[in-house]
């Protein structure tokens, strides 16, 4: 199995979720993160002190899926999250040894 970790723009999230649903990917875990890619930051100021706050809000979607569906998953996310502008995000594919469903104890590998 693979863990597909996608970091996308928050405003694309509903869109990506819908696209995933259509392809049958319903299970997912989502978190709010901050991120920075290649782009250089913006500087913040707080009571006379400047600090660079280049971290912008992103949404991270974690989906664990079967090896043979990984490519499709990546394609769906890429398609739905893309705006063509800087900050569109990244997808990382990470190996997973097994997945356990807590309710049933069922194991998938």
């Amino acid at each position, binding site marked *: 199995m693979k863990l597909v970790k996608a970091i996308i723009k928050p405003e694309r*999230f509903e869109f990506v979720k819908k696209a995933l649903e259509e392809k049958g990917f319903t299970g997912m875990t989502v978190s709010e993160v901050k991120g920075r890619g290649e782009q250089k930051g913006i500087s913040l100021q707080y009571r006379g002190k400047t600090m660079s706050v280049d971290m912008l809000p992103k949404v991270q979607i974690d989906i664990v899926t079967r090896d043979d569906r990984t490519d499709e998953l990546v394609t769906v996310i890429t398609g739905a999250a893309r705006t063509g502008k800087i900050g569109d995000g990244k997808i990382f594919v990470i190996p997973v040894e097994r997945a356990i469903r807590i309710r049933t104890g069922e194991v998938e590998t």
Partner: protein
Amino acid sequence: MVLDTGATAWILASTALVALMTPGVGFFYGGLVRKKNYLATIALAFVAFALVSIQWVVVGYSLAFGPDIGGFIGNLDFLGLNGVGMDAGEGTYPPLLFMIFQLVFATVTMAIVTSGVAERVKLSSFIIFALIWTTIVYDPLAHWAWGGGWASQFGSLDFAGGTVVHISSGFAALALAIVVGKRTGFGEHLMEPANIPMTLLGTALLWFGWFGFNSGSALAANGIAANAFVVTNTAAAAGALAWMFASWYHGKPASLGLVSGAIAGLVAITPAAGYVGAMTAIIIGAVAGLICYGAMLWRIRRGLDESLDAWAVHGMGGLWGALATGIFAAAAVNGYSGLIEGNVQQFIANAAGAFAALVYSFGVTLIIAFAIDRTIGLRVSEEEEYVGLDISQHGERA
């Protein structure tokens, strides 16, 4: 006349209450925008407060309440509060107190107007806009209704600011929203509100402050003030319930609907507060809840990005309130009769006052906004909008 310390005490307290409404609008709106614009939206209310406070003592009060020029505006006799005295003049309270009571109306009006440019306005441009708008839109409108201008001469009734504050700000917000254009991604992206509890808190402060707004407008501590207090609360409650049930019919009754309905009721009763009784307030408030809810649905269907709904709630609620005052004014309350008691003239006067304010505010705002947009630009750059106004305009994060 001799100073009435009771009246003076109530106007002092009312002024404080109304003063709290300007940040109250900021909290109400701040809770509804996206997280990245949360601070900036609240800050706009404070900026409006500060700017209009200075403008009003320097020139605004004179333009609104100075000796009349052609029914349209006041002259500059009271420039820098020249001659605005501390002793009870012709009234039972100091003219200086009347001045500050009126000031807080001007500031809250400006705060409501920010709805139209939410999440996309450039701070510097807003400052310029605000100074112009309060001077050439608000000040004349206040003069028309309360400063001896044509509307009051014509017999139009506006107890506490239905036209001056609400129609003017609501339609100005609409004009601004049209000129500034939609937020990037409006209609495509989901735009989640930053903090609805903050909006509920803003509502609590507004409801609270509105008692000063309406009841304080009696400019006395007497039965009229008590009546205004009663109908204010009653209309708010009726508006809240009406919106709640209407939205329940269509889905789930959001707390946001509940409080929007309360504001709608408060707006609508504002011009009528000194002229109708509590049972009428139930009608005025409930109808306001329904009208404003409908106006909001219509705005959404039309794809108009006036998303904090100053137009739907203050503009349309204020319009209904102005007409309702002309319809329901009851002689038993304060000596004025409306349509229902057979006084067609009152209805016509109120309709005229309301529509004139509507057209003037909408039209002049369009022109000001357009002029600013073509010169220094009303709107932030796409990038600044993307990172949010908190960072791009204030260098801060909530």
